[in-house]
């Protein structure tokens, strides 16, 4: 994520700089990581900032909520990682570097963005599925932000699930479907 605290509201400081020689590979890697993180931030930052400012009294609930989203993201990562690397390899030089960056950094946000970018070049149906996945994750944030519900369990109930476990299973099933779609269409092409 872009560091919001360090980016907003800081007083001007005199620019003190020096030059350093870096390898072309390292320079490219820095740029790729930056692009990935900014791409992920574009999806997440406005919602996160709004959510925090809208319901500051519900910090514990927010933490619980974000832990849940992280868990879902982790499941997405585990389910789709292999396909991501395969597609990245197929896409050639730039995306191979992206895959390498993801491998080195192990960053889920970066992975989600990188995967969606790789798939954009690959198959519109698959891209649609990946977009659905990312949309689904962002929707969780959006729904929660506007729900004004102080308990995560109640929030899950309001979506029609009996408990958090049922909600998690539903999300896991959704992710597994995406995995199957991408696996069958993406790799065989």
């Amino acid at each position, binding site marked *: 994520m872009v560091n919001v605290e360090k980016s907003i509201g800081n007083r001007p400081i005199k620019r003190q*700089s020096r030059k350093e020689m870096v390898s*072309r590979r390292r320079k490219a890697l820095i*740029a790729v990581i930056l692009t990935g993180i900014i791409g992920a931030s574009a999806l997440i930052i406005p919602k996160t900032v709004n959510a925090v400012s809208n319901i500051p009294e519900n910090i514990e609930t927010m933490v619980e909520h974000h832990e849940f989203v992280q868990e879902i993201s982790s499941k997405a990562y585990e389910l789709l990682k292999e396909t991501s690397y395969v597609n990245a390899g197929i896409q050639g030089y730039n995306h191979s570097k992206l895959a390498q960056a993801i491998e080195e950094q192990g960053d889920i946000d970066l992975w989600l963005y990188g995967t969606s970018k790789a798939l954009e070049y690959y198959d519109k149906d698959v891209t649609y599925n990946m977009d659905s996945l990312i949309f689904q994750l962002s929707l969780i944030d959006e729904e929660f932000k506007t729900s004004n519900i102080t308990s995560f369990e109640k929030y899950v109930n309001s979506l029609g699930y009996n408990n958090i476990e049922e909600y998690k299973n539903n999300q896991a099933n959704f992710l597994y479907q995406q995995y199957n779609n991408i696996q069958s269409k993406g790799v065989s092409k």
Partner: protein
Amino acid sequence: MEEMDIVTLEDGKDYYEVMRINNEGVCYIYLSNTSNPKDIVIRKSIVINGEEYIEGLKDKEELKKAINLYQEKNK
């Protein structure tokens, strides 16, 4: 090998200047921590009495704008 500018922010940490984007008279600077490339900071450049300063963005709306500008440029 290629040359990169490194700037030091008020936290004492060094950042690579990865990119600058000019938009409507404002120059946004995209910075990457030299020891942790996942630590990304966006600032803007201002010139006071002929010297360059780096200042924070005004609010989250400006941050959103800077993010969108970067994405547009790197499509």
